[in-house]
């Protein structure tokens, strides 16, 4: 029962991006088109699952005095492996993601979940929490990327849906969507919308465990 809650809560009610306002930096940077956003979402989810699992398994032996630096070591190693895998199997996409794969290390969702969840819970629940947060992050990233790519270029996954004027069609693309600030607006609207939907979050805005992480 709680397992299911740990998996499902972060998808909407405790969404890391819209409710906890974490991981915005990469959500802004790689959401221009769907394909890199999808790869980024998968990479973040993979790192989250790995770091939550390992840190949860080590939670009784991690020395408190050097806890954070050890968590960073574990997360950084996982990110380097993911980066190398991407560079090998998807070199073109790895190039468009530039530094943002490496910056997963500093993605606050990863360390945030490790600190606030994996250190206190068993491996099974930690994996559920990681998958849930991964899906929650992916959902926002893909929504923003889908809107930006469709409105900005008239296509999804590079497939033209609205033929643009340049290509002899009728659609005049909104180039604002191709620039980073548009992601700010979209995420802002998403946060507003999702919070209005679940008005209880405004009322109980101080959810104890997840607050205070940046």
């Amino acid at each position, binding site marked *: 029962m709680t397992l299911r809650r740990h998996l499902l809560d972060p998808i909407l009610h405790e969404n890391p991006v819209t409710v906890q306002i974490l991981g915005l930096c990469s959500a802004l940077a790689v959401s221009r088109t769907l394909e890199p956003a999808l790869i980024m979402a998968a990479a973040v989810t993979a790192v989250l699952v790995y770091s939550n699992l390992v840190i949860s398994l080590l939670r009784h032996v991690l020395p*408190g005095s050097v806890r954070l630096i050890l968590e960073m070591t574990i997360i950084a190693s996982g990110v380097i492996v993911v980066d190398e895998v991407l560079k*090998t199997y998807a070199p073109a996409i790895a190039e468009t993601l530039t530094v943002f794969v490496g910056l997963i290390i500093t993605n606050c969702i990863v360390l945030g979940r490790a600190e606030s969840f994996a*250190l206190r819970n068993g491996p099974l629940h930690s994996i559920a929490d990681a998958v849930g947060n991964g899906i929650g992050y992916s959902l926002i990233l893909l929504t923003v990327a889908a809107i930006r790519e469709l409105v900005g270029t008239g296509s999804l996954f590079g497939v033209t849906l609205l033929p643009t004027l340049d290509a002899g069609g009728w659609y005049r693309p909104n180039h604002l969507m191709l620039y980073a600030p548009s992601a700010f607006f979209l995420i802002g609207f998403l946060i507003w919308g999702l919070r209005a939907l679940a008005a209880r979050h405004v009322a109980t805005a101080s959810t104890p465990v997840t607050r205070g992480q940046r």
Partner: protein
Amino acid sequence: MNMPVAGSQPESLPKTLAITVLIAACCATMVTAAVLTLRPMQAAYAAIERNRAIVAASNPALAEAGDSAIVTAYLALQRHLVDLRTGADIDDVDTVERWPSEADASRPGVPVYLRVRDGKLDCVVLPLDGKGMWSTLYAYLALEGDLATVRALSIYRHEETPGIGDRIQDPAWLAQWHGRRLYDSEGNVRLGEADAVDADFYIDTITGATVTSSAAIRMVRASLDTYQPILQSLATRFPTSRSTPKETAGATPP
């Protein structure tokens, strides 16, 4: 929820040290294993991408071709390691990545790729490098068999600003290089001159990416001087070529 949380009880120094070293060692092993397994594949992909840049310069129609078509086209090129100072062949090479700025007295060779048809030079591909805005630009320049006309420029590698400087890779910008002339009637390099009004020599910079696109033009112009000896010797080897670049003092062909 359950069990004491890490850090809730005092630890002994030896235990802390032991766990830290152990975790660090495990992480290091994992990273090393991943890198060692994946590196050969990355190198192979990188080689194919380099071949693609070379082939795309010699024949822009192949820029998006499949990997096997690229390798076939690459292997059909004559590949020579040529002395940058004299233009003399040092060796036939297979897949050497060397750039003109790396050539020095002890290793003066750069790889030059020739496409020869019926004994006539169809085109020559030269590796170029030069300063961009943030990074070194690496590119391949293909010249027509007359050694005085650009066939294509193909950017191989750069780390310019994503979305701005990387527009030097846009096919639309690269297309304008095709058919541009290198020298005026007196043999001076005119290609890409800032005040060249003559459409034969004019290369437009990119609005918003002026620094990077100017740097790319400067790189091509500088390379024409660097490659002077090699172009001279090619002109001698393939005498059917129409015009020759201006002869500089001391480099008179035999």
